[in-house]
């Protein structure tokens, strides 16, 4: 085992961790906006699935992976709009709505995939994102390979972290979002349109989760397969909490979960005998630990999960 614990191993591990964390990061940043405004979005999984599917469809029909990614975002927004309608406007319980959205997404993607492409034994492949090496940076030892020879979507994901932070803490939108999530009544009394802010945040979460799905189908692959998200949307929900509802924390959480996943894969290929199930539990247990506040106080937005009716 010692022979694998070398620098190359770590470069490979971290680079894998980075790839594995990107879809989580996209969706979790989206989830953060939604939760910061007070809406729990368990539907991230389904929205990601829709994004993965729509991305492939978009790229298939336009021939452009960029338009594919755009279609993925739009489809995420569309599903999120339904979610916002039932949770923010009609005010059905958010958790149950999320579960229903996931169910819906599984059905709809599968239905439309069949309607569009028929039943195939070989995948429909489309144009996808290729790695872009950043000139100069990608040749740096270690970090060059890990950080600077990725697809455009990876750079976008990491760029979104400071952008989200800036929006949340330095702009009036961000202040509105935080106010709505903490104290919707107070927001209402100063004229912040609570439910409109929430709807927009949910839509943003749809766009980002959709992009996260597209990262899988177009950034990592060039095809869609049924259920290709495989629970990453739920991990994203966990990452929002573990990251304590702020972009920096979510970045760290996504990376930790990515490392855990990459490590699990590598330990197995290296023949280390730890039941894989325990490694798979890791992100969830970690989130529970985060919630105990033993490693620092976690304070959820006060109005999280509560619909606002005047």
């Amino acid at each position, binding site marked *: 085992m010692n022979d694998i614990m070398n620098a190359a191993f770590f470069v490979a591990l971290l680079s894998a961790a980075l790839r594995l964390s990107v879809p989580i990061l996209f969706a979790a940043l989206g989830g953060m906006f939604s939760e910061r405004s007070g809406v729990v979005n368990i539907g991230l999984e389904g929205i990601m699935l829709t994004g993965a599917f729509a991305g492939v469809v978009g790229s298939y029909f336009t021939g452009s992976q960029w338009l594919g990614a755009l279609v993925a975002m739009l489809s995420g927004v569309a599903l999120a709009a339904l979610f916002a309608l039932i949770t923010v406007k009609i005010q059905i319980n958010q958790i149950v709505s999320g579960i229903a959205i996931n169910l819906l997404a599984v059905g709809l993607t599968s239905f439309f995939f069949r309607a569009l492409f028929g039943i195939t034994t070989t995948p429909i492949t489309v144009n996808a994102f290729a790695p872009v090496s950043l000139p100069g940076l990608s040749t740096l030892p270690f970090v060059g390979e890990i950080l600077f020879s990725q697809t455009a979507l990876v750079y976008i994901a990491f760029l979104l972290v400071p952008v989200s932070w800036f929006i949340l803490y*330095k*702009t*009036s*939108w961000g*202040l*509105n979002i*935080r*106010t709505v999530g*903490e*104290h919707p*009544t*107070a*927001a*209402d*009394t*100063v*004229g*912040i*349109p609570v439910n409109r802010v929430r709807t927009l945040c949910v839509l943003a979460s749809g766009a980002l989760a959709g992009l996260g799905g597209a990262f899988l189908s177009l950034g990592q692959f060039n095809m869609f397969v049924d259920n290709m998200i495989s629970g990453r949307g739920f991990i994203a929900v966990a990452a929002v909490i573990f990251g304590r509802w702020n972009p920096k924390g979510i970045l760290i959480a996504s990376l930790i979960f990515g490392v855990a996943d990459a490590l699990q894969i590598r330990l197995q290929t290296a023949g280390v005998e730890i039941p894989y199930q325990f490694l798979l539990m890791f992100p969830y247990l970690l989130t529970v630990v985060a919630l105990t506040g033993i490693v620092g106080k976690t*304070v959820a937005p*006060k109005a999280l999960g509560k619909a606002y009716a*005047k």
Partner: protein
Amino acid sequence: MNPILKMTNISKYFGTFAANEGVDFDVMPGEIHALLGENGAGKSTLMNVLYGLYRPDGGEIWFDGQTRHFTSSRDAILSGIGMIHQHFMLVPVHNVLENIIMGMGKEKGFLIKEDQLEKEVLEIAARYGMEINPRAMVAELSVGEQQRVEIVKALFRGTKLLIMDEPTAVLTPQETEELFKTLRRMSDEGMSIILITHKLGEVMAVSNRVTVLRDGKVTNTVMTKDSSEYELTRFMIGRELSPACRDGRCCADKLVLELERVTCEGELGNHTLEDVSLSVCSGEILGIAGVDGNGQKELAEIIVGLRGVKSGRIFLSGEEIAGKSILEIIGKGVGYIPEDRHKRGLVLDFTIGENLILKDYSKKPFTKGGLFDFGQIYSHADEMIKKYSIKTSAAGRDSEARKLSGGNQQKIVVAREVDKGPKLLIAVQPTRGVDIGATEFIHKQILKAKENGTAVLLISTELSEINQLSDRIAVIYKGQIMGELAHEAFDESLIGLMMAGLTYEQAVKAPRGAGEAPVEGNRFADGHRTNQSNTLTPDQVSGDLPENPKEQVSP
């Protein structure tokens, strides 16, 4: 002069219930206009309509030169109306600046320019003589400071008319006076203010005009100077008040409650109570006066077992009860009207019937063989509703406590705690936010309990309430008892000085003007290191005080 606001024929229904009906109401520029009425009269509703939070079912609003149709508070804010709600609308985890500027993206720009905004905020605060720290977290501010943030928040939006819903209910007398100073200054600058309050004294002191609401309709609008507390009371409740008053006779009998050098620690390890010793006899009311936040809550909570003591002993009828469970202490006949009825005294989602058995739910006759006996529960509820005149909605005993007005909610608590004839009754702020009719009623219940032999510990920040009911008065300051006096020796300014940290001995020697000390007390409530002298000049009173005055005086 033309009014700045005219509301005509306003109606607002909840379902079929008319919270406001045909209300006419106007306010002049620069006027402080008081809005009076019993709990549930429709004051908050009317103001919510004005502020765009509710849409009226009928009527017109004319404000600042034109007819308005506010569809949201944003509309109201933009046209120059500000509102400070009874429960502050502040986000505890935001800092003061964020709380002030929130929702102002359109006016102040997309990017938050903190430094510039901070300067603007400080300027406004200074103009009206208020001190605030824009970078402080709201969660860490006192109630008075939070209210200042609310006021600045309104001023920052260019308010021409400021609505204040029961702003003094949670303030100390000192903070109240500060607030009134600010209000007068604002009115001098031409701003109009609508003030909702249950305290007639305040109305008389600060307002120019008064409108009285009753059952959703206006009964009268009068100039304050042409009216009297007596008349306003009649307008409000349709009858005269017969203020509850102790009959001067103290029937003190056996010793019931005794605290022996009790010290109690707060979350931060500081002493919230220090070396407190006091005693209450059956048939006696001991009033504890003091500025809010000086250990009153802790004092009540250690007695009923909600909080542990660090040292010292507590006896109930001679039996040590410190360290015993809440349940045991309740079982020994201790009734407790808590400071915050929403937080402690009631389960708002329970029905009236369920709330009335909150402390006896598992006892006979309500429980038989492990199951509830609903016949008993219902008849008990009906009896209490009748006996304590609890005004319920149509659902009667089955209506949720949440749906009652504050005064009626408090009556549930009082009924539950008093009706059993407890050995000891602890009443903390029993009439906070409660209208004068209900206040009178609650006071009478407390006196009746005393006459029936209950020992009463009355903790209140309202000196008038303390004076009205107590046989003896003790003053608490920073967790210490500054001294005790008999009712006969009641002297508002003396007590005011003690509330500010002087011992009885120091206070009697201090020169003072009637009614002034409590007002000024706020300034030295923080306490400063001082020179050691027994006679204090006025200067010293307002500026320097012994940090721990008690030690200065040899017993």
